[in-house]
């Protein structure tokens, strides 16, 4: 009975959406058909052409200099520049969740694993973790040029930590991670405030954006993405560590 009701509710919900999908018509605007989006009607059109502040002509990879957001990766330019405020919030969410986990279950002794781990696994885990760290750093540093960025990069780093935690039941993460995490977050805010003080607008880019496609381009974006990458990495690592802790035994 309960399941039937649940299924009914789920089905009705589905129907509701079916009702409103593909509703774009001449008479009324609505959700356009899949793949038939007219980007000129959306704000993202200007993100693509980087013409929010004014028409800057055709953007060409490797040639255009000082475009308004110098990132070749348009998603990154939205995430870290056009809507950087969202990202600050997003970082905060993760930070807050990690803090919450720490409040709830953190601070205990390391849980011991049920199986004993072969030393080969331990050592190779360390090697892989180091590689992952390097890869993660690569990903977030190149966030403005290639797919990826601070969040994937940080997650990759955390994956390394996870590997070490799983492989070795004596392993704890460093207390310094908390400091790193906090400092990076603070740095993000400081960058924003610097923008506010320098240009009068919070989180505004105040560095030259360079040539499109260069590593040292896009103004603040690589810096912020590095900050985010470190922060997310540290955060997720600490969070994983909390999950590997047992409260009560110190």
């Amino acid at each position: 009975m309960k399941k039937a009701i649940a299924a009914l509710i789920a089905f009705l919900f589905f129907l509701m959406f079916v009702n409103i999908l593909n509703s774009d018509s001449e008479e009324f605007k609505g959700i356009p058909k899949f793949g038939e989006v007219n980007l000129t009607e959306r704000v993202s059109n200007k993100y693509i052409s980087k013409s929010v502040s004014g028409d800057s002509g055709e953007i060409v990879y490797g040639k255009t200099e000082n475009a308004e957001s110098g990132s070749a990766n348009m998603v990154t330019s939205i995430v870290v520049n056009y809507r950087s405020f969202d990202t600050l919030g997003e970082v905060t969410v993760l930070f807050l969740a990690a803090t919450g986990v720490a409040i709830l279950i953190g601070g205990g002794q390391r849980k011991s694993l049920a199986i004993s781990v072969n030393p080969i696994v331990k050592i190779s885990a360390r090697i892989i973790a180091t590689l992952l760290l390097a890869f993660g750093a690569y990903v977030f540093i190149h966030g403005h040029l290639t797919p990826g960025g601070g969040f994937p990069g940080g997650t990759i780093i955390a994956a390394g930590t996870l590997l070490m935690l799983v492989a070795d039941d004596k392993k704890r993460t460093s207390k310094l991670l908390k400091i790193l995490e906090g400092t990076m977050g603070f740095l993000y805010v400081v960058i924003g405030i610097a923008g506010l003080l320098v240009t009068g607008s919070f989180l505004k880019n105040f560095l030259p954006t360079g040539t499109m496609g260069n590593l040292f381009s896009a103004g603040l974006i690589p810096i912020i993405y590095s900050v985010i990458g470190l922060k997310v990495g540290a955060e997720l690592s600490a969070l994983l560590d909390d999950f590997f802790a047992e409260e009560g035994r110190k």
Partner: protein
Amino acid sequence: MDLSMIILISLIAAPILYFLAKFSHKIAYILFSFIQVFLFVFILLQKGIINTVSSFEIMDGLKLNFGFTPINWYFGSIIMLIISMSAIFMISIKKKSPAKLLLLSLVSTGAIGATLSMDFLTLVIFWELSTWSSLILIVLDKEKSFREAIKYVSVSAIGTYSMLYAVFYILKSFGTVNYLEVADKMKVAPESSKILIFVLFGIMALAKAGSFPLHIWLRGSHSTAPDEFSPILSGALTKIGAYLLFIMVAVIPSSSIFSWLPSIGGITLVNYVLAWLGGISIVVGTVMAIRMEDVKELIAFSTVSNSGYIVLAMALGGTYGTIGGLMHVLNHALASAAMFMSMAAVIHRTGTTKMREMGGLITKMPITFAAYLVAIISVAGIPPMSGFASKWLIYQQLVKNGLPFLAFAAFFGSVGSFMYVFKPLTGVFLGQLKPEHKNVKEAPFTMILPMSILTLLTIFWGILPSNAISFINKIVHYTGGKEIQLTFSRIIALTGQWDSVLVTMAFFVGFIIAFIIFLMGKKARQVDLMDTYTGGEFLYTAELYHFVYKMYRPFDRMFEKWPSMENWLTSLSYKIKELGALLKTLFYPKYPQGYVAVSMLTLLVAFWWLR
């Protein structure tokens, strides 16, 4: 001095008195009574003035309006008389506290503001102020008051909110809340809104005046209120209900705006229903008062009964009804305040409210006894005290309209009042003195003084009711009603006239004759009260002589099986709680699925419904 200034002063005095009382109780109480007496005198001196003062915007475009009309002056004076007398009375009460003083000041401010208001919004705001302060005030002294006070809270909430609704309804429909302007616009208002407004106002008036079926709070709150506050509660605050009632039936003449309804006995249906409620509350109040064992509960029910008279009289309308009702407001204010004060004085000295624990105090507290005696004679409506005048006028109206059933209620209350007023007289003042009360002294001077003033006023208006009626005539004239014919000592009504001075003279002649005969007889030998005929039994303790406990037992037996009205509120509260349990299982289940499902269903239903 500006009227709004007066009210402001009264309001500001509240916190000042509070902090002063932290420092010294005595000084603060004396100052409080000075302020109240000053306010009373101020209002009294405005006799005959008609003006309006607007100030202090409450909501956009709505200001507080105060002013004097004969109506405001009359009610304001009565209420402030009672409050100022009680304020003097309080000076020597034992349980003093800063909080009490703060709340009393607020009560007084609210009462002045309400009675001197010129529009419904001001009325309800200040009335609320005094009600809410009194709510907190009544629980300050006694333990069992909490359960009782809740009844007061809910009944006054019912009353207040219906009034608030009506006020805003009026504001929306007519664009004004001024009494006179509303009165004008009511004449052309649609029928349904007339009825709505009247029903809502009626609920408020009945609830606050303590009339059936909203009388249930009176017993508990009057009896458990601090002793010095009971006179204000009964004598002053219930009279604001009468004030609203008067505005309903006389300023907005309900008789004329409901002329399209059938009329019974010459009064329109709405008024007839109201009169019946008044009649029922007379009967209920009387029966219950007779059955009470606690002296303050007894007087509380007498308040119910007398509020019934006021409602009945005002609902009857007409010359005699209106004037009788207004006169009864004055009489009952004086008498009930005096009764409560004398009882408070007794309680102050003896420390109990149970009649069976007292007795024979007449020898110890003669002046208190005299005050009580005069008050009960007035309540019972016996000439030559002022209570007779109002009852007489009410009977005139009943006879004029030929309403035997309502007359029954009025007579029932009148004759029944002999029974209940006599019970405390017997139990408290007469009979055997209890040994533990051997050293009781007369009440202190500050208690005696206000009681005596009220007593003298009762006697004065008993001998010369024409004096009081002459200014009630002015009120009636102001509202466009017909005045009553008066001479110096006579009141001329429908079924004849009544010469109060002559009656008093006759009584004194009779008394002198009796006195002469008494003196002619041989001098009597004084014996102790214990030295009485006991049919051969030898009784040696005063307690065994006591007979006031269940004095009217045969009468009680007749009414024991009557359904109790007092429990409807309790059962309502149970009903709400049951509903709460049902709602909880429906919408606030223990597991999250429940409310996720409800939320989803709401979303989906709303979508399919609204699309």
